[in-house]
């Protein structure tokens, strides 16, 4: 087993100007990790039931949590489709930046609609 070392410091890594593609990359990771935790806890709570399950369900059903999880879920879904299309048809990869520009308005429109529905439902109208 060989140990690898980082060839850049953490501060250099944080200053890396990956711009648009880097932002989608990091949001995709955070969202994926968040969904893995959320789905696992949700499956466990629905299995356990009882006071723990009811408590966890009340957390998921709060509109603040839904705004948070929906941001990452919607982003992961839309960004994932972009990655899938570009990776399965590699000739399109030259248009990666344009695809990311296109991705944001699609995401903002769908997430904006979700925010509207969640907040209206959450405020009980």
């Amino acid at each position, binding site marked *: 087993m060989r140990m690898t*070392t980082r060839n850049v410091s953490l501060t250099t890594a944080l200053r890396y100007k990956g711009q648009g593609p880097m932002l989608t990359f990091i949001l995709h990771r955070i969202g994926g990790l968040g*969904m*893995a935790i959320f*789905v696992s806890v949700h499956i466990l709570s629905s299995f356990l039931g009882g006071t723990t399950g009811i408590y966890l369900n009340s957390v998921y059903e709060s509109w603040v949590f839904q705004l948070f999880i929906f941001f990452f879920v919607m982003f992961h879904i839309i960004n994932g489709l972009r990655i899938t299309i570009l990776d399965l048809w590699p000739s399109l990869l030259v248009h990666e930046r344009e695809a990311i520009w296109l991705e944001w308005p699609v995401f903002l429109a769908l997430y904006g609609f*979700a925010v509207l529905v969640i907040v209206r*439902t959450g405020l009980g109208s």
Partner: protein
Amino acid sequence: MDTPRTLRPSERGLSFEMLLWLFTRLSALVMYVLILAGLVGALIMGARTQMNFADVMRWAFMPTVTHVQSTNVLELGPWSTVFWKSVGSALLLVASAHGARGLVVIADDYIVSGRARRIVRTASVIALVAMCVIGLYVVWTA
């Protein structure tokens, strides 16, 4: 850098890692199909009760009957058929595998020690099997 991060050309090709890379992309497309099926189903079955959109989406993201128990649907029968339990099971299995693969990819990128990476890999596989078993139990006994 004491270890090369790219494979020699002779080592590339259809490896297990390549198949998992492909699985991540194809499972994304499969989940799109399953979620759209759930969305269409909720719109058809919930139309008579004027189901609100939040509940429609909750069904689309996981078509299991516990997701509509607290809504205004008149009868739960059409929502708990073998068909929808199968769609839910398929979504559960595909999404869990996709997620476990994602955890391994993230671990490989950020965990430097090979031993810790192997621990996370093993833990991800155990978590995957556990979530599939528990999830299937919940879907089919609900």
